[in-house]
């Protein structure tokens, strides 16, 4: 079989072509990483303000409060609060998690792990990043508008998000920003899908790809199919706001003609539910690989894991209605959505069993990437199981739009994805920058994140079970919520602790990249056999001198017949048999 020739061009020499408008997938991956970390900081600061308001209503935000909200004496005002949680959600989902997990690891890992010299469309890849940048700038600019940024929740349900609820330009900017972001995501997705299909090195079958690639590839497929659906919704909502169409207007908002606000919810969640899996699948993939690498044995039931990830991907497209139980769809529809949602638990149980099977009788090395991966197993266990409550229509009558939901989706989308992202960052750091991160700081970072993280999100679920609903500026207006003051304070303390813990990461990250006297990493510091570790660290220009020929699976470790003195073998080596 023939393989596509991948030509090597000279390495760019000028600063602009090397670091700014680069076609190199590794540089673009790093650009996405910086971009994501910046927005993670912004979104995290917003989370602190939200938590502060909930624990100390009416008390000025410490340190920077007076500077940011001079008109209210440093207290977060209600309209700003609405803006904060809207922007927190938008930023974390679209500008922090997506760039880090999909943009950075997708770009960096796909060619390296499948044995290609670059993405198949480098120009498209570069455009994808710059569209993200543009959309980020639009969003950032919207924060400075006199009437504030969008404040209708990250879901932006009409009619609140039409001119009647959000008269300012902020909401329109939000729509434009997300549309640009969608264009960027779709470009990236086309690139990822095509790269994985056409550029796999000789011998790299689908079932020899590392699970990271499986996760990212499935994510890209979901992205390509469902982001345009959001795009359609955003376009129509923009038309409603700017040109006076009446797609989503009803009630007092509809001065002429009449639309249906629920239509937007359908379109939004047709995209929105796959989006949840878009975010989590790369983290699952990374975790599945790292668990095997650091247990020093092959991934348990590799094929089953890959297939259950695929099954979840397929199921995720037909369950979106469980976000809309309270809109009172027809009972038949509601029941079908509930049944389908419940089915997701089966493939999830299977890959959980496989994760634990991977640990079983391993020889586990507790390096920092492994700690974070084990953390993913723990928090996703909690996050996934609490989804069962919300999938049930009757329990949802009580828990819908309470903090229980907030706790649940933070466990799945924030905690698991964040831990998975950190695992990946610590793991591929030597290949990205050629230097090892400080292992001791990394372990401190893990425990300082993991413990308060559970405090925050379990605390939220407790609050929700006690009836506290979402997006309240001051929940203690309600008498039945007044007893929750101490729990809210506890959650806030945990959140602050978790926020402070990220300083360990930042210090470690910057020190490693820019610090002096940091030792160079060896080509294969973690002693694993996937293709990216067959080349020097950091990965050289155009990755592979010669396109590798793949002969065995990605996690061939602990093979008793190995005579090389290593306990692992590279994917380029013939599988050793007795």
């Amino acid at each position, binding site marked *: 079989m023939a393989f596509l020739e991948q030509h090597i061009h000279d390495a760019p020499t000028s600063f602009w072509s090397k670091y700014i408008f680069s076609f190199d997938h590794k540089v673009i991956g790093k650009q996405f990483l910086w971009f994501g970390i910046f927005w993670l900081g912004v979104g995290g600061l917003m989370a602190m303000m939200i938590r502060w308001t909930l624990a100390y209503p009416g008390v000025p935000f410490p340190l920077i409060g007076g500077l940011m909200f001079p008109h209210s004496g440093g207290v977060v005002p209600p309209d700003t609060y609405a803006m904060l949680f809207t922007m927190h959600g938008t930023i974390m989902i679209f500008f922090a998690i997506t760039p880090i997990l999909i943009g950075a690891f997708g770009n960096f890992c796909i060619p390296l792990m499948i044995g290609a010299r670059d993405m198949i469309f480098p120009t498209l890849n570069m455009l994808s990043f710059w569209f993200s940048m543009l959309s980020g700038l639009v969003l950032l600019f919207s924060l400075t508008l006199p009437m504030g940024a969008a404040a209708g929740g990250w879901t932006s*349900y009409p009619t609140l998000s039409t001119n009647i609820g959000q008269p300012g330009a902020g909401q329109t900017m939000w729509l434009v920003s997300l549309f640009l972001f969608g264009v960027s995501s779709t470009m990236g997705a086309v690139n990822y899908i095509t790269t994985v299909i056409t550029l796999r090195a000789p011998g790299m079958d689908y079932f020899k790809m590392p699970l990271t690639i499986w996760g990212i590839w499935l994510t890209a497929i979901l992205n390509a199919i469902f982001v345009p659906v959001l795009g359609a919704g955003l376009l129509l909502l923009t038309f409603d706001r700017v040109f006076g169409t009446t797609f989503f207007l009803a009630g007092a908002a509809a001065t002429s003609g*009449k639309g249906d606000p629920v239509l937007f919810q359908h379109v939004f969640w047709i995209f929105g539910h796959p989006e949840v899996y878009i975010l989590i699948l790369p983290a699952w993939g990374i975790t599945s690989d790292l668990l095997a690498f650091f247990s020093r044995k092959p991934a348990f039931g590799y094929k089953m894991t890959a297939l259950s990830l695929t099954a979840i991907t397929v199921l995720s497209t037909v369950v979106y209605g469980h976000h809309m139980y*309270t809109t009172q769809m027809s009972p038949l529809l509601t029941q079908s959505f509930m049944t389908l949602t419940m089915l997701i638990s089966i493939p999830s149980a299977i890959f959980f069993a496989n994760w634990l099977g991977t640990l*079983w009788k391993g020889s586990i090395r507790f390096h920092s990437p492994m700690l974070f991966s084990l953390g993913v197993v723990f928090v996703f266990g909690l996050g996934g199981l609490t989804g069962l409550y919300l999938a049930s229509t009757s*329990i949802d009558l009580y828990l819908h739009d309470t903090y229980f939901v907030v706790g649940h989706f933070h466990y799945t989308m924030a905690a698991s994805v964040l831990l998975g992202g950190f695992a990946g960052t610590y793991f591929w750091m030597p290949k990205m920058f050629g230097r090892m991160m400080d292992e001791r700081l990394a372990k401190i970072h893990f425990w300082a994140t993991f413990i308060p993280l559970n405090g925050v999100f379990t605390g939220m679920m407790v609050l929700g079970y006690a009836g506290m609903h979402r997006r309240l500026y001051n929940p203690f*207006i309600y*008498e039945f919520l*007044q007893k929750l003051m101490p729990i809210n304070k506890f959650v806030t303390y945990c959140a602050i602790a978790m926020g402070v813990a990220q300083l360990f990461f930042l210090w470690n990250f910057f020190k490693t990249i820019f610090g002096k006297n940091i030792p160079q990493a060896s080509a294969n510091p973690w002693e694993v056999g996937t293709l990216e570790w067959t080349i020097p660290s950091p990965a050289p220009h155009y990755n592979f001198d010669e396109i590798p020929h793949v002969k065995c699976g990605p996690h061939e470790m602990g093979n008793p017949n190995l005579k090389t003195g290593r306990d692992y073998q590279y994917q380029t080596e013939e599988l050793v048999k007795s």
Partner: protein
Amino acid sequence: MDISIPHRLIGLVAQGSELVVKASEQMSLWERMQPPVDISTSGHLIHWLFNYTTYVNLFWFALVCIGLFGFSFLYWEKRHKKALYTHGNEKKHLMITAFIGLGVFLSVDLVITKVTTRDMKEVFWNFPVNDPELVKVQVLGQQWAWNFRYAGVDGEFNTADDVVQLNKLVVPVNKKVMIQMTAKDVIHAFYIPNARIKADAIPGRFSKLWFDTTKTGNYEIACAEMCGNHHYLMKAQLTVLNQEDFDRWVKESQQIAIATNDTENMDLRWGWKWESR
């Protein structure tokens, strides 16, 4: 569900908020974690299923933790130098995985889906439209208040004698109450924590729910869907009266309504013909 004493106190003395704060000061963490007192006939169904799910979840999560922490402890590199070389694709491995999948399916999917479907069909979707004593209320959500409308003496909605209340819903105890609602401007969600029910009030369409109270007293109604900057202020009061007091209240408010309703102002006629389905 077990309700502790200071907890019950909240429901009774909800008028005096200082008292409540005092009562909550002595609460244990466990008491704080409990949902507000259940005043509905259907809430226990939700709690039964919630508790069932909790037990099953605890079981499965315990298994995950045993695997996670147990294996981490037992097979630490220093204790377990040589990893077992297996791809986990032998028949017995597949059997174990399939068995776990099946276990989850039987214990989780099947039971929860079945019980939920039963509860929804028999109770929550089984609207008491034919109940002769049904209390009918129309609700209109707006930024940021709840409007309640009773049909008045003629039994017809949207007529001059309707009793209209702002942020105050009064119902008799032990009677089925059915609510039809919509919203004026943006989407709201009508949420009675004490009755464990919730439904979106959406401009341009009607949603409905019903409940049946078992305890008299004053409770809170909240808006659970983000509806603007002052979403948090969108609070109404639910007053559950015994039949006598309720009859008296109906009579009084009927008289006030007839005396004060502005029959010319069509803006006040936001009601609609009761949908009998």
